[in-house]
């Protein structure tokens, strides 16, 4: 009888293992094979021709940038929603909508907002400051468009987590700090941040890993100019199919970054434990 729960869990775990772990290990193994079936670093050396360094840098830039934007906006949303005011419920519904919007749809919409000619962002800028911006002029501004689109879609989940964290902090802490003369900024640094550590950690792990993986957004918004690791993997895969070694080498680099990132965040935020 004691074994029944294990038996019930088994199919799901087996499914995940077969479809997720084995392909991942397979991918890493195949990336070290040369066309003749011997182990080599050939695929990794060849990646150099495809600007893999650039793709790595861009991926890190987008990940860090998007996380900073999402944390900042998430704090803004959470601190607004943690107060009582007229219209709070309506606003909390509005802030959750982008979560349900498909990534592809978000990408298409933002591509119309940030068009160089005929873009809505330029309509706003033109009527306010009489300027017209070419958003795809430099790699950094292209990547900024990707970060903004991604943040629109994913800030809701960060705000939800931060809001849960904010509501777990006892109000007395703020009262006594206020009595001791601490201003809003000092209260934020000395009370809010330390108490939210594990919640910020959860948000960073959840979003950070996805951030390394963003694929549909950059593919639609910037194609592979500049390339991210994911778009590079896809590009190498489609052009060299069925020779998948090169794409898998890039994929393995991506996997390495994700594992390192998770390790760092878990260490910094105390393992997400209390």
């Amino acid at each position, binding site marked *: 009888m004691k074994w*029944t*729960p*294990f038996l*019930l*869990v088994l199919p*799901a*775990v087996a*499914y*995940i293992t077969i*479809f*997720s772990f084995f*392909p991942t290990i*397979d991918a890493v193994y195949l990336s070290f094979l040369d066309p003749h079936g011997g182990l080599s670093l050939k695929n990794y050396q060849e990646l150099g021709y495809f600007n893999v360094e650039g793709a790595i840098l861009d991926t890190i830039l987008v990940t860090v940038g998007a996380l900073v934007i999402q944390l900042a906006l998430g704090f*803004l949303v959470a601190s*607004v929603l943690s107060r009582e*005011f007229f219209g709070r419920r309506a606003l909390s*519904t*509005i*802030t959750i*909508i*982008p*979560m*349900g*919007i*498909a*990534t*592809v*749809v978000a990408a*298409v919409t933002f591509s*119309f*907002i940030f068009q160089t000619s*005929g*873009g*809505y962002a330029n*309509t706003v800028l033109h009527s306010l400051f009489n300027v017209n911006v070419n958003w795809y002029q430099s790699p950094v501004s292209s990547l900024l468009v990707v970060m903004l689109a991604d943040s*629109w879609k994913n800030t*809701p*989940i960060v*705000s*939800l*987590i931060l809001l*849960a*964290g904010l509501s777990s902090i006892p109000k007395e802490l703020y009262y006594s700090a206020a009595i001791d003369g601490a201003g809003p900024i000092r209260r934020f640094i000395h009370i809010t941040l330390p108490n939210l550590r*594990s*919640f910020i950690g959860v948000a960073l*792990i*959840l979003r950070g890993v996805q951030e390394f*993986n963003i*694929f*549909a957004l950059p*593919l*639609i918004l910037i194609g592979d100019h500049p390339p991210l690791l*994911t778009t590079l*993997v*896809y590009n190498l*895969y489609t052009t060299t199919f*069925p020779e*998948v070694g090169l794409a898998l080498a890039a*994929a393995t680099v991506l996997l390495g970054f*994700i594992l390192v990132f998770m390790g760092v965040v878990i260490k910094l935020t105390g393992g997400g434990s209390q």
Partner: protein
Amino acid sequence: MKLVYLGALIVGAYFLFPLYVLVLLAFNEPSSTLLAKYPSLLPLSLTLNNLKASLQGSEFLDPFMKSLETATLVGLVTILLAVPAGYGLSRLPRSISYPFLVLLLVTNMMPAIVIGIPIAVEFIKLHLFESVIGLALAQTLVTLPIATFIIQGTFSSIPVDLENQARIDGAGLFRRLFSILLPLAAPGIAAAFLISWMFSWDEFTYAILLIPFHSTLPVTIYLDVTRGNLLAGVAFSLIFTLPVIVLTFALQKYLRGEYLAGGIKG
């Protein structure tokens, strides 16, 4: 207190603006949207022609049906696996169920593009490439951990005493499941199904890797937009979005930070 309203205004505008743009694009003449150097922020030339032309002109029904079939299949396979797993985990001691949950969630963090390529290579051999079944099998990877987690939480909230009572009365596992546990867990299971459906409806990476030629709606939108068929891309985006917005409202109470945070903290 005024500051809150200012913040609320900024936050509200930020989240609604892109949706407003999508609606403008869908219902205005192209001359005042796509073709204008500075497209108007007001609905100046309302029309239904864009939607009509897009729905008649290009292939819409096939990708739409494929998305529908895939999402429904993913929902069913997910529930079939997640209900027993969720129940099993809810009846195991925390020290054992926690590592299982972490294992499930960690697999959710594996990049789809890393998993997708070896799977695609296998599927070509197995004749599952370009098939809805193959795609659904892969997309279940994304939904299964989340669904298991939700269902586990639902079963955990049902008092064990209720079950023990039935056990004393001589009800076997299946009897207990069908007459007591499943009816009580129904809302959680429904939520898990809808969330799985929603995630699969949106999924792009596995779709473009495993079923690249006659694909689901997200891939069709991508292809339309990159081939310059912009109005079709906009129209499909809107149609694509409506069911998901309805579901988001329906599921709002399940989409809570406490659940997500609790899942990782254990």
